């Protein structure tokens, strides 16, 4: 069995920041990351971040990974990284199981754990939604921005949240035509600056529309959409057709919470946080002692918030296992203030109304 002081599950924005914070406090950190590389979703985010200077605003996500890895490197004597490794179980007796590549199975025991597993894309039910050419928007972003592969030539984007809007823009940057962006909601969900930026390139944004069906034999050739009423019911006779070879589904994310649930952490369904999330205290410790959680797995938000949550959870987890530094209060207050600032606007109010339900 492998021993770890502080195990961090997930090397995305929240996990990396948790690792930096904890390693800076002096804790020995083990990061386990499922992918071959660290950075999580940052590695495909070619757009500039919102927020303020402390959350790397105006810096592109792809460059934030580099900044975080350089920061982590300052404490390298305290950091061990296991990439290409998936944590597959967290058991009641504290044993954690992991799989390196495909067949190297091993067990870990840790004094404390920060679960920073992120979120996954939701799907949408409609006839023929399994035709090739119908992707999650995140998958398309990975294909384009990580692997340099164009997904097709004409895209219909389903979902006008930030991911749908951003991926549409990046598709156009890659020379792909976006025929329209639709959303069942009556208002655009993403930041309106993103929406305006795409609209002024001539792409229509169709609110109160949903997908009726996809048509095609071996792959998608046509998409049929229709208007919905205020109860999200299709309105007959409002159909529109688009000849497309790609449809991107971007209807939101939901927290990737299986490990926390398996471990026995108390979970609660909170719509404002986009799914089942763990109950936690203000230090991001769940209802099971020494199991912390941070980032999208505690509620879907922008990556800026995930990073600050990671810093805070890493700081508190390290303190809990004996690495409470003299400047603990100062650092903690700084992170709390940053989160308050990020959440003080209209979008943040919605998130806060969810967080109120899970902080115990």
């Amino acid at each position, binding site marked *: 069995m492998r021993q770890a002081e502080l195990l961090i599950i997930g090397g995305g924005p929240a996990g990396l920041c948790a690792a930096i914070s904890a390693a800076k406090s002096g804790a020995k950190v083990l990061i386990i990351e499922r992918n071959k590389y660290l950075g999580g979703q940052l590695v495909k985010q070619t*757009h*500039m*971040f*919102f*927020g*303020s*200077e402390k959350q790397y*605003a*105006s*810096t*592109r996500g792809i460059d934030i990974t580099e900044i975080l890895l350089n920061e982590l490197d300052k404490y390298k004597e305290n950091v061990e990284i296991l990439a290409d490794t998936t944590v597959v179980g967290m058991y009641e007796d504290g044993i954690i199981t992991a799989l390196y590549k495909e067949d190297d199975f091993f067990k870990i025991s840790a004094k404390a754990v920060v679960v920073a597993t992120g979120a996954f894309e939701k799907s949408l039910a409609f006839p023929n939604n399994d035709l090739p050419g119908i992707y999650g928007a995140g998958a398309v972003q990975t294909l384009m921005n990580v692997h340099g592969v164009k997904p097709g030539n004409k895209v219909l984007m389903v979902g006008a949240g930030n991911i749908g809007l951003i991926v549409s823009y990046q598709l*156009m*940057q890659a*020379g792909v035509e976006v025929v329209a962006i639709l959303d069942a909601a*009556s*208002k*655009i969900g993403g*930041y*309106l*600056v*993103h*929406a*305006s*930026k*795409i*609209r*002024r*390139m*001539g*792409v*229509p*944004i169709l*609110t*109160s529309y949903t997908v009726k069906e996809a048509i095609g034999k071996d792959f998608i050739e046509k998409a049929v959409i229709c208007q919905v009423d205020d109860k999200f019911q299709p309105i007959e006779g409002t159909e529109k057709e688009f000849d497309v070879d790609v449809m991107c589904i971007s209807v939101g994310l939901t927290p990737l919470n299986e490990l926390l649930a398996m471990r026995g952490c108390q979970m609660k369904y909170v719509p404002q946080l986009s799914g089942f999330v763990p109950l936690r205290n203000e230090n991001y410790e769940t209802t099971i002692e020494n199991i912390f959680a941070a980032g999208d797995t505690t509620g879907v938000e*922008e990556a*800026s918030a995930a990073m600050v949550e990671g810093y805070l959870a890493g700081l508190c987890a390290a303190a809990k296992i004996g690495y409470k530094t003299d400047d603990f209060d100062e650092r903690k207050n700084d992170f709390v203030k940053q989160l308050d*600032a*990020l*959440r*003080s*606007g*209209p*979008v*943040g109010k919605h998130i806060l109304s969810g967080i109120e339900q899970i902080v115990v």
Partner: protein
Amino acid sequence: MFEKTGIPSKEMVMGKFPSIERINKGPVAVIECYKEIPCNPCETACKFDAINIGEDINTIPAVTSDNCTGCAICLTKCPGLAIMIVDGSKSETTVLIKIPYEFLPLPKVGDTVMGLDREGRHITDVKIVGVLNPKSFDRTPIVTVEAGRKYLYDLRNIKVEAK
């Protein structure tokens, strides 16, 4: 409608422009940030105290046009690409408009390209009079276009046809 379409109304747009007298004096920033989001890099980037957001980073930026030099640093720092610089001091018949443009091919000085409005409609042709893409702009090039004066409040984008 804005929240349904992403197209700001004429009134919303006009509310962001300084007076024509100010525009005729020289370059000045127009920040088309209409909705509160947690973001303040424009304020951080401005060295002339011309952009104010304050303690609450969700506040919509306020431009003090008298302090603005039109330096355009904020253009490249705005994650929403919501800022442009307008300058009516060079000619009585045309205006210069600086916009961020993150697409390839980049236009070249002297090119004539399509000028688009906030809905992406081709409203006029514009002449490219400047293209800046230094490392400090971090892959957000700034293109300066010269457009007829009557398009001052409508022109917001360009389209460059690949050759």
